[in-house]
């Protein structure tokens, strides 16, 4: 436990706060729309619609309330005053999976819970995303030798982003959410048919 263990070179500097209007737009994701429109003449309308829908989707990810274990407490902490996931429009934790877009698999998925998690995922309407939070959900983590624990939630449902940590601190969590937003920016029919990027 060396007090000087922080390896400052490895940490990326905090993101610059957007000041100009253009930067603010870029931050929200709309700038992609403008750039994409510029880059591809002929498909402007198509990809612009795509980008706008993506923008809407990434700005209003409603998670389903599905805390499983330790990470659920950090999930609550992420939603609380100090970290405030509401800034991304994500504070509407829907209890019913029918109205949710995103599932945080926050905690150990045991064998007994696994079919229920899968059912929960299947009940969510498309498009839907999954974030596996913590070691347990990613790989089984500390409990991967246990008889009663599934070795990673990606064995039963597709996972978009993995966040390591046990449990990850809320900032790490938010970083994972930002990674997911980056991913959603490049989704859509345009991306599927090779039109974006």
């Amino acid at each position: 436990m060396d007090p000087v263990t922080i390896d400052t070179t490895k940490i990326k500097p905090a993101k610059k706060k957007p000041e100009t209007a253009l930067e603010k737009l870029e931050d929200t994701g709309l700038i992609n729309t403008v750039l994409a429109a510029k880059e591809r003449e002929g498909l402007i309308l198509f990809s612009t619609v795509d980008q706008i829908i993506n923008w809407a989707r990434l700005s209003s990810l409603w998670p389903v309330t599905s805390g499983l274990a330790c990470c659920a407490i950090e999930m609550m902490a992420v939603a609380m005053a100090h970290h405030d996931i509401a800034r991304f429009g994500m504070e509407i934790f829907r209890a019913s999976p029918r109205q949710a877009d995103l599932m945080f698999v926050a905690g150990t998925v045991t064998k007994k819970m696994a079919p229920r998690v899968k059912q929960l995922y299947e009940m969510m309407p498309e498009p839907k995303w999954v974030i596996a939070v913590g070691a347990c959900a990613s790989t089984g983590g500390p409990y991967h030798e246990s008889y009663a624990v599934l070795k990673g939630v990606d064995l039963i449902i597709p996972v978009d982003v993995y966040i390591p940590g046990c449990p990850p601190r809320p900032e790490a969590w938010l970083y994972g959410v930002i990674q997911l937003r980056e991913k959603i920016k490049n989704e859509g029919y345009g991306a599927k048919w090779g039109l974006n990027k």
Partner: protein
Amino acid sequence: METEELLLNMGPVHPSTHGVLRFKLRMDGEIIKECNIVMGYLHRGTEKLGEMKTYLQFTPYTDRLDYISAFPNNYAYAKAIEELAGIEVPLRAEYIRVLTMELNRIINHLVFMGSLLMDLGAATMIMWGFREREKALQLFEMLCGARMTFNYIKPGGVRDDLPDGFIPKLNEFLKDMEKRIDDYEQLINENEIFLMRMKNIGVISAQEAINYGLTGPALRGSGVSYDIRKLEPYSIYPDLDFKVCVQSEGDSFARYMVRVDEMRESLHILRQVVDTMPEAKIVAQAKYGIAPMTGMPSAVSTYFPRIFAPPAGEVYSRIEAPKGELGFYIVSDGTTKPYRVKIRSPSFCNLTAIPRMVVGLKIPDLIAAFGTIDVVLGDVDR
């Protein structure tokens, strides 16, 4: 009038079950006729893993039992091993342990208040509770580098000494906390709707509470003045001045009030601990391979034991965790791995009383009563 009985399944993923618990309710209209609790959705086989890991490797797993208040878990496990092996713990280490545990008790009760009120529909309290929790977690992070799963209290001492600037920050927190508890009490304690929801709900008499094996605030809410910190004093609790918070009604509100009072009591204990903290900077004892750890940071890891084997024997050691009696039954066969680790978790035993408490009540009352029992599913299912 004959009515059809309704079978309602609450959970395992339900907003008010604090995790993954399932109630199978047989209902007559809105009234609960029978309540069956199905658990095990978070059964991770911790006890089996305890047999597979060495004594020192198992400490991180104890963090993940009651993940809201992990320090008492750490401590209960360390205390069991210390009793088994007869290890003396340096005084400063004990002070640090009590400090962390009482801080953790406050956090636990904050989360309890928040989630209870969240279930009752008032979302503000949980935000305020977590706001203060975050400040305490920053203290923990200073102390051991993690926010929830600490791995800090080890058999024979604690992992490291208090860092610089910890005590001033703690004092600041204590000062702030006093005001905040006033805020909470002002917000909700006299709220008519809250009283309406809590008074005379989920009543359990002292006799029954004992019979059902309730411990901790749930038992003290029924008027039994019982606290392991007083009855079987451990650590430095005999030297500290604190009172056991008791309420006599045995209903949800009494259990709630016990916890609010305990928060103030914990603040009182913390102030004493800070005032009387010994100066000698020894935080671990040199027995069974544990070398004395000094304040020198980089020297610590060199002395940490790689092999640690207490003598063969059995021990049951219990402490007063924020949720009740937390005990570890450890069977050692003299090797580096425990032969059997049994965890007597307070949440599991306190939950036993729920089916008895809620018969004849309505679903909202079930939520109120369940909320005041204050369980953590990691602790229930282990």
